[in-house]
């Protein structure tokens, strides 16, 4: 951690809190299960996703990907491809436009945008991973482009590639930082405390490569105008980031690039950073001199877009006789590439969850010659909680203590490593309510004690945890003379319900009915700020900006209303209700927005505001928490596992829209079921090539894998966050795999520490 950062953290401790937002406790649209505002369009098939925009004179582009993991291109033989019907251009390093290397993610420079890999795109003959694009074929139709791409022959000079995580993990080194934090942290002498502990467990946990596999494959459409300006439709979680990264690569002004992404068909982190195809699409459009669409095939998605790193984690826990943790040791290795430099932060999880007399956490990273790894839903916490929460369960059995009780015993009073106050942490309450609803106390303590015919039954539990992030955001707000309001933000909607919640919010804050508020987003021409659909941060980030924008608009409206208005010189508080501004407690003394604007002869007023720095996140220890309870059935004969019941009890601040929030939490849990039982990207270590680039062979959960998932939540607002809310997008996947592994142990007495828990491991 830099000196500056440390200083900052100290300073913020003395900063006063912002006055709590009165809306946190007000009953309005927020907190009610409003249906999605874009629901109609989605169920009618009218919502247009990236690849679906109609552009005149559109050509189709298909990438040609490397089939070696490391080496050099000797030659590209495009003779047949060029002559194949319909081919317009073949773009290789020879004729590609100059593109600078894009920057990598740096939280302090979100404004520059970032790519998942900082390698140059199609600029030289170097191959750094199997699947790296080496050419792009542009043709009149998709069929022609696909066929011609298959005719491109590439000759390589192949070098030995480093691709086996198993073989190379011993060479891992300590990265310079993990998400800006020190990569290693020691409190007291954990080794000694562990050695002396009354009870202990010490094991290795492994998680494989995973891929996001959003059902919408990555796609882009790029068009250049005569003045050299670039418009790109891109399925991105970060329109502004995409814009700035592209501008940087093509040497353009930020204002000369426009990125549009109204609907994104799932992202889960896989569409946050810029990936090759977007730049390639823009490059192909330039060479072909016409608009080009590059919609990746499912196989291309596996080859061009990275997923989650494999990991090996050691968790050693020591407890005293009373069950208090004497030592938490959580270390391990993940993989990255020299061009991604992303150590997935699994070791941040143990820093904030439990009190322990001593602690030793840290992580190392090894570089492989693979596609860049990237964020995937709850990066760090998803795999970190698998290891830590499995280990706690193991310790509970070793101690013959209830696993819920063991966690309660070690509930910290302050952040265990930072020493900061928790802004709002009610995990024990979530456990209490969850256990009651699930009927946890009725579970036999002994493993292998429930059976139904061929099926062994077990119950498992684990903690869910995901930190709170917020980024400064800019919004533009327009209030029109017809009494309607339009909120505009360069936000991204991939299914979280962003538009819906922000409309609920603006309606409450403006005192307007829902129908009078709309939300424009998904376009980088809207105010520039680092709003990203990532880190479960978007809702809070935008909400903070909407709040200040509404306040500003209200000030302007009062001014506009002038002396003739009942609002003039009011010495009581002014409140927004009934479509305008009214004096608090004085009935209809006030004026509607429509009336103010009409009197002033204005069609509308428009304000733009940016929310402040997220100091609250530094001052407090802030996170979403939860307790995941599940019931697993394991077939004694075949080892098949079925999850037959799930209850998630969450503590995520105030729930702004129960309908969409529950869906998000369930969605995370479903992905957790896949992570635990079936998903795995198979990388053949002889070649460094992914062998199952298909939804038929990469097994995401299907309907029948998923039981009814019950969700309950504390709904206790956090006074220090916008609207009192914490993020709900990622926490669902955390703890889920551990809960399943723990339930399987309870059912069978077999402890599987190696994901996915496929049936062969249980025979």
């Amino acid at each position: 951690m830099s000196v500056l950062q440390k200083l900052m953290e100290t300073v913020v401790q003395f900063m006063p809190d912002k006055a709590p937002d009165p809306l946190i406790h007000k009953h309005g649209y927020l907190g009610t299960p409003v249906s999605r505002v874009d629901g109609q369009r989605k169920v009618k098939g009218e919502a247009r996703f990236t690849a679906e925009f109609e552009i005149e004179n559109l050509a189709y582009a298909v990438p040609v990907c490397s089939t070696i993991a490391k080496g050099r291109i000797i030659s590209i033989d495009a003779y047949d491809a060029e002559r194949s019907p319909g081919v317009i251009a073949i773009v290789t390093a020879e004729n590609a436009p100059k593109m600078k290397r894009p920057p990598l993610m740096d939280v302090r420079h979100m404004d520059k945008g970032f790519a998942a890999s900082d390698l140059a795109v199609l600029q030289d003959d170097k191959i750094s991973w199997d699947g790296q694009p080496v050419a792009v074929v542009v043709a009149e139709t998709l069929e022609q482009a696909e066929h011609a791409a298959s005719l491109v022959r590439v000759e390589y000079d192949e070098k030995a590639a480093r691709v086996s995580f198993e073989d190379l993990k011993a060479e891992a080194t300590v990265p310079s930082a993990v998400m800006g934090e020190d990569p290693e942290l020691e409190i007291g002498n954990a080794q000694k405390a562990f050695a002396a502990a009354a009870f202990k467990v010490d094991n290795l946990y492994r998680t494989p490569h995973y891929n996001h596999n959003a059902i919408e494959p990555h796609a882009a459409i790029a068009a250049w105008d005569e003045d050299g300006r670039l418009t790109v439709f891109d399925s991105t979680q970060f329109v502004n980031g995409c814009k700035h990264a592209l501008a940087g690569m093509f040497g353009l002004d930020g204002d000369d690039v426009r990125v549009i992404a109204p609907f994104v068909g799932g992202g889960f982190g896989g569409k946050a950073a810029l990936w090759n195809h977007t730049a390639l699409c823009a490059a192909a459009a330039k060479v072909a001199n016409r608009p080009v669409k590059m919609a990746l095939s499912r196989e291309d998605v596996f080859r061009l877009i990275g997923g989650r790193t494999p990991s090996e984690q050691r968790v050693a826990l020591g407890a005293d006789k009373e069950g208090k943790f004497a030592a938490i040791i959580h270390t391990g290795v993940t993989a990255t590439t020299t061009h991604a430099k992303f150590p997935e932060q699994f070791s941040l999880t143990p820093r904030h969850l439990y009190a322990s007399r001593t602690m030793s956490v840290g992580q190392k990273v090894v570089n492989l010659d693979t596609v860049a790894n990237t964020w995937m839903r709850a990066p760090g916490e998803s795999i970190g909680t698998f290891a830590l929460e499995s280990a706690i369960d193991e310790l509970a059995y070793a101690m013959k203590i209830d696993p819920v009780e063991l966690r309660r015993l070690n509930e910290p009073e302050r952040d265990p490593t930072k020493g900061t106050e928790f802004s709002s942490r009610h995990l024990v309450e979530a456990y209490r309510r969850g256990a009651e609803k699930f009927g946890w106390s009725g579970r036999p303590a002994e493993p292998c004690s429930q059976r139904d015919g061929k099926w062994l039954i077990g119950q498992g539990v684990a903690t869910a945890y995901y930190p709170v992030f917020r980024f400064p955001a800019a919004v533009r707000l327009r209030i029109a003379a017809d009494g309607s309001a339009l909120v505009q933000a360069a936000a991204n909607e991939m299914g979280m319900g962003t538009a819906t919640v922000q409309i609920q919010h603006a309606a409450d804050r403006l005192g307007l009915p829902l129908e009078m508020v709309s939300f424009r987003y998904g376009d980088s021409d809207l105010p520039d700020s680092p709003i990203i659909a990532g880190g479960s941060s978007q809702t809070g980030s935008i909400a903070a900006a909407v709040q200040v924008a509404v306040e500003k608009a209200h000030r302007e409206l009062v001014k506009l209303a002038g002396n003739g208005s009942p609002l003039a010189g009011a010495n009581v508080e002014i409140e927004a209700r009934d479509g305008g501004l009214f004096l608090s407690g004085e009935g209809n003394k006030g004026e509607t927005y429509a009336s103010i604007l009409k009197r002033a002869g204005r069609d509308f007023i428009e304000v733009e505001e940016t929310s402040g720095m997220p100091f609250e996140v530094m001052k407090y220890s802030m996170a979403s928490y939860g307790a995941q309870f599940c019931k697993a059935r394991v077939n004694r004969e075949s080892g098949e596992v079925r999850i037959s019941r799930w209850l998630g009890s969450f503590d995520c601040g105030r729930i702004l829209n129960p309908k969409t929030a529950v869906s998000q939490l369930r969605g995370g849990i479903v992905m957790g079921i896949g992570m635990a039982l079936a998903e795995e990207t198979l990388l053949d270590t002889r070649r460094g090539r992914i062998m199952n680039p298909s939804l038929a062979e990469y097994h995401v959960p299907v309907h029948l894998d998923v039981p009814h998932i019950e969700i309950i939540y504390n709904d206790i607002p956090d006074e220090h966050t916008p609207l009192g809310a914490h993020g709900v997008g990622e926490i669902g996947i955390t703890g889920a795999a551990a809960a399943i592994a723990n339930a399987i142990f309870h059912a069978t007495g077999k402890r599987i520490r190696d994901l996915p828990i496929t049936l062969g491991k249980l025979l």
Partner: protein
Amino acid sequence: MKSFAYARAADLETAVQLLSKTPNAKLLGGGTNLVDLMRENIEQPDALVDVTGLPLDRIQERPDGGLVIGATVRNTAVAVHPVVRDRYPLLAQAIVFGASGQIRNMATVAGNLMQRTRCLYFYDHAARCNKRAPGAGCDAIGGFNRMHAILGASDSCIATHPSDMCVALAALNAKVKVVGPNGERTIAFEDFHRLPEDTPHIETDLQPGELITGIEIPPLGFARRSLYRKIRDRASYAFALVSVAAALEVDNGKVRNIRLALGGVAHKPWRATEAERVLAGANAGPESFRQAAEAELAPARGLAHNDFKIELAKRTIVGVLGELAGG
């Protein structure tokens, strides 16, 4: 996908003519396997002869109580047929355990028989595969072979046949009716698919120019008590790791009649003749079921990732027979 010419055959004669006279032509059924493989450039026909317009779309009852199922009957139509559900429940079951509802509505019976392996290396052009390119080698042997064969494999190829329906047909002693330039013939089901040996690219006994016209299923009274069980990596919509099709008749505690076939274990739907032999007249109990399973799997060989399938196959056999015996 490479360009191809397309023709829809209205009658059998035309279909056979087109198929045998057009260079590098292939038959097109529902397209659920062929289109996928063409898109992957694994199949590269110059012409497609569409058989779905042929009058082979009926299921007929035979006087002896058996059935003839036309080659272009869709998988769903077989599974919903009252006679199939009543007399051959294992066939209906095997079908609905395969693929998805949408695919079963498209897939034809003949296409299901002719579908090709899902071996990951067969699907990947950058890999070596004797089935795609005879003599190139087999990357699956030292690679990911979790889905691969434990019985009847060779040094050339360890792929499995992915069909569920065919496992039931193997147990039922079905016959495959074909027609070609030399007229009609009937092939016993167990002779239809081949083991890989050193020619894994030759998968069936179908000769160039021949097409399947239908499947004959002989009567089998005791098949009313039959089961199909499929073990896979998720609860639905995944290929079999191991599957078992069985029909069992028990008389006075003894096995009177038994039919047993396995899926997911070999290059062809595997008729478990050895187990059937062991079980003939034996006690219908767990010990003899286990003995039979052991006998059938005695020649089984695992590679690194699919060792578990040997035990899994044994247990599934015992389980299914146990269920049929009423245990």
